[in-house]
């Protein structure tokens, strides 16, 4: 259940990255998660809500981009998408030489409402 720790790190990173005055207007937080990063998106979303409750980030939500696990083979110079986490080339069966993607755990961008949008949003029923 390290999603709670990841959620806390995420909130600290957001606070460091954007000016505090803009924090009340954060709507969407986009993150990139590799299939082998060991993160359950639903758990992270839940923990994020808990961590941001009654904070300037309350009401913002996470948007996930899933990254498949892909390895590269030096023997046949091709990439393999291996959902099971295997490090073997699916084309020539040799041991793959490197991981191309699939371990990501990154904050990519944040959507922030303008003060006018925020005002209109708060007034909407």
């Amino acid at each position: 259940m390290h999603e709670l720790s990841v959620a806390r790190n995420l909130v600290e990173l957001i606070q460091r990255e954007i000016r505090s005055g803009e924090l009340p207007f954060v709507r969407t937080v986009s993150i990139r998660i590799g299939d082998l990063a060991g993160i359950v998106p639903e758990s992270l979303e839940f923990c994020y809500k808990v961590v941001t409750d009654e904070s300037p980030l309350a009401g913002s939500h996470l948007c996930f981009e899933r990254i498949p696990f892909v390895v590269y083979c030096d023997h046949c110079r091709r990439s393999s998408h291996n959902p099971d986490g295997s490090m073997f080339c699916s084309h020539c069966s040799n041991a793959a030489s490197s991981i191309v993607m699939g371990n990501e755990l990154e904050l990519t961008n944040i959507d922030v409402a303008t003060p006018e949008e925020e005002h209109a949003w708060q007034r909407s029923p």
Partner: protein
Amino acid sequence: MATITIERKILEKNDQVAARNRSFFEARGIVALNLVSSPGSGKTSLLERTLAHWSGKVPLAVIEGDVQTDLDAQRIDRLGIPVAQIITNGGCHLEAHLVEGALQRIDLSGRGLLFIENVGNLVCPANYDLGEDAKVVIVSTTEGDDKPLKYPGMFHKASALIINKIDLAPHLSTNPGILRMNALKVNPRLTVFETSCVTDEGIAAWCSWIESMMNRKNHVIIPEISA
């Protein structure tokens, strides 16, 4: 609506502290090994056998990570080896800042070996670099032979695999050969050892691997250190 592009690792703060720990070890010629496994794989017993092998030959220290109690630290302390216990109070893994804090609490001689026994968990510790030279994953024969396939993330990050409790294999349906094959499927670069803390099988081979790690940091291992 405006989009602010950030593109940063979520655990970058942990990585920064891990880099500080790594510099600390590098400056002192310390080899640090992060031991990871499920609960009950025999990490602490293996550590006791490993410490017995190295005792008197190189300076030793241990950081113990547990959700609760200092029982493991007591076991290491009984061997007369400097030890710091980290109690995570529910936390399922060690983080770099916890290790950095523990380093202030132990007498860590230079050119020695530091073992960090992580919290028993095959998922979460994989994400947190502690600044170690290598992660060593331990799986016991009582856990079955499919663990590497179920928890590939941890096996990807490890440099070595220890199949522990090998003395029990004849009494179990676990096939150590299949366990090894499954681990190498996930990470072909793993160095694999089979050990028993009852018969001492494989302990010497595992300690030889540690010695090769130390040689890489230009260690001089002397037969016995005078008390």
